[in-house]
């Protein structure tokens, strides 16, 4: 276990963690704003991967396909939100069970459409090489994913801090009733945030495809990681989602490398520590 081992896993963990951020950002914002715990969020990711792959095999540009996959996922997410979830944003258990029923249906539909075999997704040609650093070999695409996700995170933070819409979202997370009372159109913020969450997860599906590939059950594997991110970071906090994602990504990478039989179990450690020391999460506020 030389320096190369650590560097390899640090970079791998950061790449995986930045994918987790694309999933967890929507999860935490939707929960913070509407108290909806969206169990279909990782199914959105898988849908994005499958749709994006279908577009790429039809000779679409990789980045364009990723955006389109995000938009298609967003349309589906908005349909489910406006038809069913919208009525239940004060009732966490109902909305949670609805998203779970929806995830079951979506999973089965994807299995029917794309079959049970794992589908590998290749990165765009100009990023398919690898970087060599001493005896460390590292895929270029992983670095690209880290850069892209951090760029998306930067845009999200800027939008949340600097735009009027961001102000409305933050105000509604803090005190929905007061925001409503002041004449803010909170409903618009609800739709927007749910759409954004689905868009990021769907687009992330193809972006992450070369790392995670796409297969039935991938969403179930990602779900506890995304949940661990939200627990560690604090529910409703975007900064928490970013720090939590990178942390869980790193723990997951080292766990897989050092204790292959317990790679899932290793994420239990940060979750247990956070619950013992700071139950509201790193960036969560005391209720």
């Amino acid at each position, binding site marked *: 276990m030389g320096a190369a081992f650590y560097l390899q896993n640090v970079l791998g963990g950061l790449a995986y963690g930045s994918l987790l951020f694309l999933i967890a950002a929507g999860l935490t914002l939707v929960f913070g704003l509407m108290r909806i*715990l969206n169990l279909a969020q990782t199914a959105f990711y898988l849908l994005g991967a499958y749709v994006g792959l279908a577009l790429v095999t039809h000779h679409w540009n990789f980045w364009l396909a990723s955006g389109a996959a995000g938009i298609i996922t967003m349309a589906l997410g908005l349909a489910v939100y406006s038809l069913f979830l919208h009525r*239940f944003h004060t009732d966490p*258990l109902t909305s949670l069970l609805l998203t*779970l029923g929806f995830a079951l249906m979506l999973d089965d539909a994807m299995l029917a459409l794309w079959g049970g075999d794992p589908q590998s997704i290749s990165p765009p040609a100009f990023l398919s090489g690898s970087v060599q650093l001493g005896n460390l070999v590292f895929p270029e695409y992983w670095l690209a994913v880290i850069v892209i996700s951090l760029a998306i995170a930067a845009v999200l933070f800027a939008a949340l801090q600097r735009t009027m819409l961001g102000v409305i979202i933050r105000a509604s997370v803090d005190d929905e009733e007061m925001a409503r009372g002041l004449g803010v159109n909170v409903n618009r913020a609800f739709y927007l945030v749910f759409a954004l969450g689905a868009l990021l997860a769907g687009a992330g599906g193809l972006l992450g495809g070369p790392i995670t590939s796409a297969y039935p059950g991938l969403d179930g594997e990602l779900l506890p990681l995304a*949940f661990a991110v939200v627990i560690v970071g604090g529910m409703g906090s975007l900064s928490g989602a970013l720090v939590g994602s990178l942390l869980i990504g790193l723990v997951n990478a080292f766990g897989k490398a050092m204790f292959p039989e317990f790679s899932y179990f290793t994420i239990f450690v940060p*979750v247990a520590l956070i619950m013992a020391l700071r*139950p509201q999460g790193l960036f969560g506020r005391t*209720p």
Partner: protein
Amino acid sequence: MIVAVAGLVVAAALPKVGVPTFYVSLLTQTFIYAIVAMSLDVLVGFTGLVNFSQAAFFGVAAYGAAIAATRFHVASFGGGMALGIATAVVTAAIFGLIALRAEGTGFIIITIALNQIAWGLAYQWVSVSNGDNGITGLTRPPLFGLDLSGNTTYYYVCLGALLVALLFLGALVRSPFGLVLQGLRETPRRMRALGYDVWLYRYLALLVSAAVAGFAGVLYAWYNQFVGPVDLALDLSTQFLIIVILGGIGTLYGQLLGALIVVFLSNGLSAITQRWELILGAIYFVIVLYAPDGLVGLGRRIAQRAQGRRGSLAPTEPLLAASGVALTAAEIDEP
């Protein structure tokens, strides 16, 4: 009471009047699921804890008994049962320390994560759990010299187990301990002001519930003669919760009806179509939208409609409001 006795007589007579063994087997599964659903109802309906890791307690007990039997040659009924239940209680003791730091929705999120982690352990820890292949080759140990290998005999054992669990949990929720739990469900803050250790009572409720779920888990391991990661999957935890909602939250005995419907429906669907998960997901939607207060509530609304009174079939109360588990209110209640 009369319904209960009549139901018991019918249940006892069923295998004797030529009901096909396939249905006897499904009914056995129904009894086992009903025990788990009742144990979950103690948490959801009586304590106000919506636990999404009940399948983890059920599954680790099944694994505990299976591993004890196949590796350590624990061949007795009592030995396997005791080890299985102990595994479930230890798991709940660990889960409780973590999950009970949160309340309301936070508790839900953490129990979902913990259930998935338990599943991951069963799936990946191949040297102990045999991974996705699961543990096979289990045999049912004799009970007081009675050979349980026949499905009809085992049906009666599980029917008896259901009665024992129902009587035990029924007595539990009526006991002073159970009354404290119901107080916690309604107003945790007031109970704290009255000097009750809220955390401790919730923790004990979790341990008792896990012990009963573990009892069912061991019965299931012997019923199926196989234990695999599906037996502690999150999907199964949700299925147990759906049974509780369908049977009526806070009714205990209603869970038998909920289990009957869910077991027969999922088996029936998987027999006729490959797309049964799609239909099951749709059924979740229907139950949550139209019968969050259980079949009894739905029946009442249909009857009102038949009498010509206007009203929506969908209830106006949010899910669980009837039993007092208003999650947002619980969160506001706690400082």
